[in-house]
C-alpha cells in the first residue's frame, strides 16, 4: 500500500503554475530576486526555476515585458554591460522606491497564504 503510494507520487506530473497565477505573482518574484542583487533576464528566469524546483516556468515572452514595465515604473533600473564572453547584456537592479512596493506585495501574499492554509487545514482535519 505504502509502496503503491510512493509509485503513484513518482508518476504524478509536476504541478504547473497557471498563467494567471504566474502573472499575478511576477512583480513580487522579480523584485524579490533583484533584492538579492543585480541580475539579468536569463539568470532571473533560471533563479525562478531553481526556487520553484522547475514548477514555475516563465516564458521569455512573459519575463521581458514585466522587466521593462517595472523599469518604466521606476521600480528597477537597468544598465548595459558585458557578459563573460563579451556580448552585450542588460543588467537590472532594484531601486530604493521598490522596497515599499515589495513590502506591500509580501504582506498581500502572506494574507492570501494564511487564509488558504487555515481553510485547507480545517478541511483536512
Amino acid at each position, binding site marked *: 500500500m505504502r509502496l503503491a503510494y510512493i509509485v503513484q507520487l513518482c508518476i504524478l506530473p509536476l504541478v504547473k503554475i497557471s498563467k494567471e497565477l504566474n502573472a499575478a505573482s511576477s512583480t513580487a518574484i522579480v523584485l524579490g530576486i533583484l533584492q538579492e542583487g543585480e541580475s539579468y533576464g536569463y539568470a532571473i528566469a533560471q533563479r525562478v526555476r531553481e526556487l520553484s524546483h522547475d514548477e514555475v516556468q516563465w516564458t521569455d515572452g512573459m519575463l*521581458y*515585458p514585466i522587466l521593462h514595465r517595472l*523599469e518604466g515604473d521606476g521600480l528597477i533600473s537597468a544598465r548595459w554591460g558585458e557578459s563573460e564572453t563579451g556580448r552585450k547584456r*542588460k543588467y537590472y537592479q532594484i531601486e530604493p522606491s521598490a522596497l515599499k512596493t515589495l513590502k506591500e506585495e509580501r504582506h498581500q501574499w502572506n494574507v492570501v497564504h494564511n487564509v488558504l492554509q487555515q481553510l485547507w487545514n480545517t478541511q483536512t482535519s
Partner: protein
Amino acid sequence: MEHPNVLNLPPEIQRLLKTLPSPIALELEDHLLEEYSRHLRDGETPERALQLTAERFGELLEIAPACAAVAPSRWWLRREAPVDFKLVVVGWMILSVFMASRICFASTPSHTSIVACLLTGLSCACLGAGFLRRSGTIVWASIAFALGTAVISFFVPIRQDIADFIVSGCALEPILLEVIAVFSVLSMATAWKEARARKQLALTYSG
C-alpha cells in the same frame, strides 16, 4: 544597435525578432545563446540544442503585442533626472523670480533687461517642462535660451555706456550679470549632458 541574427531559427521567428526594438531583441538574443550553451553543456548535440532553444523561442510569439503595448508610450525617456540637473531647474526658477522682481522695481526698464528676463523665464520654463515631461527636445530648447542669457549677461556690461544703462534701467549690478552668465554656462553644460543622455536612451530604444 544592430538587430541580432542568431542561430538558424525559423524565418517567422526571425521576422518577429526584427519587429522588436533592437535592445529587446539583443536581450533575447543573449537569453537564447545562454539557453543554447546550457543545452550544449548538458551534452546535447548542436541540432538538439538548437531545437530545444527554438522551442522556448517559440513562446516569443507572445512578446510582440506586449512589447508593442509598451513601446509607443516612450517610457524609456522616463529616467530619473540627476541631482545636478534638478539643482539647475531650481536655480533657474529662483533666477526668473529674482529677475522679474528687479525689473518690476527698476525706474525705467530697458529693452535689454526685458529680453534677458524673458530668456531667463523661457529657459526656466523649458527646463521645468523637460524635467516633468522627461522630454529631450525641450531640454535642448532651454540650452538655446540659456545661451542667449549668457551672451547678454557676459557682453552687455563690457560697454560702459550700456553698463551704466543697466544699473539704472535694469536695476542689476554688472557683477550680478556676470554671476548670472557663469550660472547660465554651468547650467548649459548640465542640460547638455542631460539632453545627450536622453537622446542616447531614445536612440537605443528606437533601434
